[in-house]
């Protein structure tokens, strides 16, 4: 919905109004404290009941490099990335580029102290005299710099129609009620707001109005949600090494655990250890898993590379472990502050030899929470590492969601024998008693003298004794394959939203869903119907092949170069391989619905192709309005 829909409801000066349906970008320099200002705006829209989402596009830097914060408001609830119509230009370094990137009719709120030499006459400019406004503000030097960003909050609030009461509410949320901080920020907002009210004439169409569409919702980052899920999954040990964009996962654990996990005397029933590197981090997790505590680590691509050897050991020795990979762009250091789905293939098989891992693919904060505890249940049940593949976009940005539901089932601790059970049943560590490939284990400290076993990464027989015998090796590896088949029936299944006789079918996973699901609605308006299947885990279940078999072709959309999940599915479903077309994006940015629409329209016009092509370099297709 855009301009047209508002005509009936608004008159005179607002006849061109665009209400609750636009994107804005705030351009600042990293380390200037703009995050508080941006989150205040984000939270304000949320508190007004308008569906909203913010994306921080930031540099790998502590201070000085450019950073952009995108906010999209959408009364329809679409929150994928959308090119901004409104710019808040507070960074001299990118000013020209930022202004140039606005569409015709765009809005530019800029710091008047910066030299702006744009000859574009198709924009609306609102210069803000920041120095002048801050002249009389009573705060000391360094803080003044931080608080300067509050001037654009005041001006934007006025221009869009956000009340000062709402801003105050948002600030109170941000600062957890600390009044001094709220007041010092608010005084600048008021000052700027008052200045804008008396000095600016609004001539652009963009504004917001209260709605009721965020009632009962929460707003949280994926990393916070995942960490909280881990806490409700009973994670007791976290070992980690700092790496963007996973660090805030552990930060969240360190916030939640002291509040939620203390014993009768207030003692911690958890341990968080900052390791010397990722090798040690995963080593601690595997050690804890072997000893019977639920343990988790969070990392990103480079860290996952370092964890490869331990993950192979844990797979082979069959030790539960949970690893969150908040994906960023690789290989190598890559683009450490941009988002990606580039670790899927590596994560699925990380470790040398015939290693295969359970991989969970969350797409929302609700799923981050749910998979947060499910991962530990699966790791214990299957006695194997479980890798949760989030990404920077999901992990570090704030997302709306429904309040998390308390786990409906008790913890699943898997086949762990007590001293009495060892007595009654006997114990052979690697014997497949139940035929599901999952064997029984005992924990150190088990009082039964027959409970002890010796874990190792070397070849072993059913009693965990060292063995180099071929039949022992083969038997054990084939049993692990049986266990992996069992895993297919236990992991979260794909979400299928099928339209009979749909024009195009799309398979996807993770955060691409927002652009794809918006594209679906836009394409429906154009008379094109889509069938969707969103994968939530590897290995795939039967429903995945069945869905693909019902469609002559499917587009598999993902954010990496080579179509990593395409390769995995083609390998798993050789008879359907030719039906799967990889459609990839690798620019480090979250997908836009427009990009998806273009890809779908292209596909509609080209015959089925089994080859991997970079569709982005293809000629552009007109997108009907």
């Amino acid at each position, binding site marked *: 919905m855009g301009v047209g829909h508002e005509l009936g409801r608004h008159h005179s000066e607002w006849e061109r109004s665009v209400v609750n349906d636009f994107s804005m970008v705030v351009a600042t320099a990293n380390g200037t404290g703009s995050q508080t200002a941006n989150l205040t705006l984000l939270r304000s829209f949320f508190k007004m009941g308008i569906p909203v989402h913010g994306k921080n596009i930031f540099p790998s830097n502590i201070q000085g490099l450019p950073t952009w914060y995108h906010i999209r408001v959408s009364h329809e609830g679409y929150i994928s990335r959308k090119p901004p119509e409104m710019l808040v230009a507070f960074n001299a370094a990118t000013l020209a580029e930022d202004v140039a990137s606005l569409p015709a009719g765009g809005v530019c709120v800029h710091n008047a102290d910066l030299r702006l030499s744009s000859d574009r006459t198709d924009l609306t400019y609102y210069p803000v005299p920041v120095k002048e406004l801050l002249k009389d503000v009573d705060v000391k030097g360094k803080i003044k710099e931080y608080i300067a960003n509050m001037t654009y909050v005041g001006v934007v609030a006025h221009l869009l129609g956000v009340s000062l009461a709402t801003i105050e509410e948002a600030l109170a949320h941000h600062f957890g009620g600390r009044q001094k901080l709220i007041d010092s920020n608010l005084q600048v907002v008021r000052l700027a707001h008052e200045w804008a009210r008396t000095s600016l004439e609004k001539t652009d169409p963009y504004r917001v109005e209260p709605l009721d569409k965020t009632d009962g919702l*929460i707003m949280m980052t994926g990393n916070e949600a995942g960490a909280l899920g881990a806490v409700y999954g009973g994670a007791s*040990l976290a070992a980690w090494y700092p790496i963007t964009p996973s660090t805030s996962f552990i930060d969240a654990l360190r916030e939640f655990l002291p509040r939620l996990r203390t014993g009768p005397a207030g003692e911690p*029933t958890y341990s968080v250890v900052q390791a010397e590197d990722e090798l040690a981090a995963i080593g*601690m997790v595997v050690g804890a898993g072997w000893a019977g505590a639920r343990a988790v680590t969070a990392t990103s691509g480079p860290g996952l590379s370092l964890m490869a050897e331990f993950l192979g050991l844990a797979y082979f020795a069959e030790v539960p472990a949970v690893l969150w990979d908040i994906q960023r762009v690789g290989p190598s250091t890559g683009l450490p502050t941009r988002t990606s789905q580039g670790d899927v293939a590596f994560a699925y098989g990380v470790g040398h030899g015939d290693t295969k891992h359970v991989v969970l693919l969350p797409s929302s904060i609700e799923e981050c929470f749910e998979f947060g505890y499910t991962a530990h249940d699966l790791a214990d049940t299957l006695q194997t590492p479980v890798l949760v593949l989030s990404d920077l976009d999901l992990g570090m940005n704030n997302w709306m969601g429904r309040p998390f539901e308390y786990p409906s089932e008790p913890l699943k601790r898997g086949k762990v024998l007590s001293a009495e059970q060892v007595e009654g049943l006997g114990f052979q560590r690697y014997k497949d008693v139940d035929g599901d490939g999952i064997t029984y284990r005992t924990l150190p*400290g088990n009082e039964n003298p027959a409970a002890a076993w010796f874990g190792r990464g070397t070849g072993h027989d059913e009693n965990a004794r060292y063995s180099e015998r071929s039949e022992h090796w083969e038997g054990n590896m084939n049993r692990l394959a049986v266990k992996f088949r069992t895993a297919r029936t236990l992991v979260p299944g794909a979400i299928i939203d099928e339209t009979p006789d749909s024009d195009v079918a799309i398979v996807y996973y993770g955060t691409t869903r927002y652009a794809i699901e918006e594209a679906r609605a836009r394409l429906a308006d154009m008379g094109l119907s889509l069938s969707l299947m969103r994968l939530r885990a590897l290995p795939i279940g039967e429903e995945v092949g069945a869905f693909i078999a019902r469609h002559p072709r499917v587009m598999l959309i993902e954010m990496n170069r080579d179509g990593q999940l395409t390769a995995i599915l083609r390998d798993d479903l050789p008879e359907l391989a030719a039906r799967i077309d990889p459609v990839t994006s690798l620019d480090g940015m979250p997908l836009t619905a427009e990009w998806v629409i273009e890809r779908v329209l292209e596909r509609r016009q080209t015959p089925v192709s089994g080859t991997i092509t970079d569709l982005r370099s293809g000629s552009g297709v007109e997108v009907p309005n």
Partner: protein
Amino acid sequence: MDRVPLKLNIAGLSKADYAGNPSTLCKGCGHNSIANQLVQVAYELNLRPQEIIKLSGIGCSSKSPAYFLGMSHGFNSLHGRMPSLGTGALQANHTLRAIGVSGDGDTGSIGLGQFKHMVRRNVRMVYIVENNGVYGLTKGQFSATAEYKHELKYAGRNDFPPIDICMEALVAGAGFVARSFAGDAKQVRELVKAALSFRGLAVLDIISPCVAFNDEDDSRHSYAYGRANEKALQELGFIAPQEEIIIDDYDPGTVQVVELHDGSRLTLRKLEADYDASDRLGAMARLQKADEAGELLTGLVYYDDSRPSLAEVSGFGATPLAGLSDEQLRPSRESLTTLMHGYA
């Protein structure tokens, strides 16, 4: 005494109950001697095998936890990564006692980082380095503890100074640092016993000669060796059976010269009875002086139990993390509801 199977200790176990699987290491390997002493110590201290975990990295030394305390859980992990696995296991269950066995390659090279960080964290473990200055399983390369300018047939001359495990432990802040010789059964037992009662990480650097590959004359303690025997040892596929080197007890403050399998000599100097083990700088100076004199200082080099272990720093209660009930593991429904309000 240990031939009498029914002689039980206070834990109700015979010495045989503390045995492990038969060793697959070379006959006469010092590592076997250490495993035997661990069995003896566990028996004498009435240890309950259920309360012990055995951990190791990769290498000849790291195989040995399979050869003692067969009724204890154990984990033969990755090369140089035993410290992290042990840290996790002991954080998960701080009521367990841990015996870690590593080698000079495992600790001094690939695992030096993890070793030093484990020392920093003061994880409660008896950390034994079975130190022979050579890589055995890969047939005779120098390890980081090999003596400067030492020569080996396979590896040639070692052009780099050794890493001194005890010195590294001291620098990293270890509260228990000791050195011994695998053939000095009595001293090994005494040090292991003391180490088992230590509140944090106890480092035992035990010189444990390799019968197969560290077989050259030591340049500093040169000793002519029978030519025929030397030839036989050059055949990499043939490892001559050797007797374990057992030395007689020697007095504190005195020197004992040990003849190794290849005929080279090792000069051990036992710390004197009135040695002040609480002086960290003094300990470093003594290690340095001994090195300059071509001697290996044995005994408890440094002791300071003032620093809490990682588990103590963590503030755990009596119940280990691995023993928490489901109710203790999963916070209440109400807590989630309350938390959700904060994000609305």
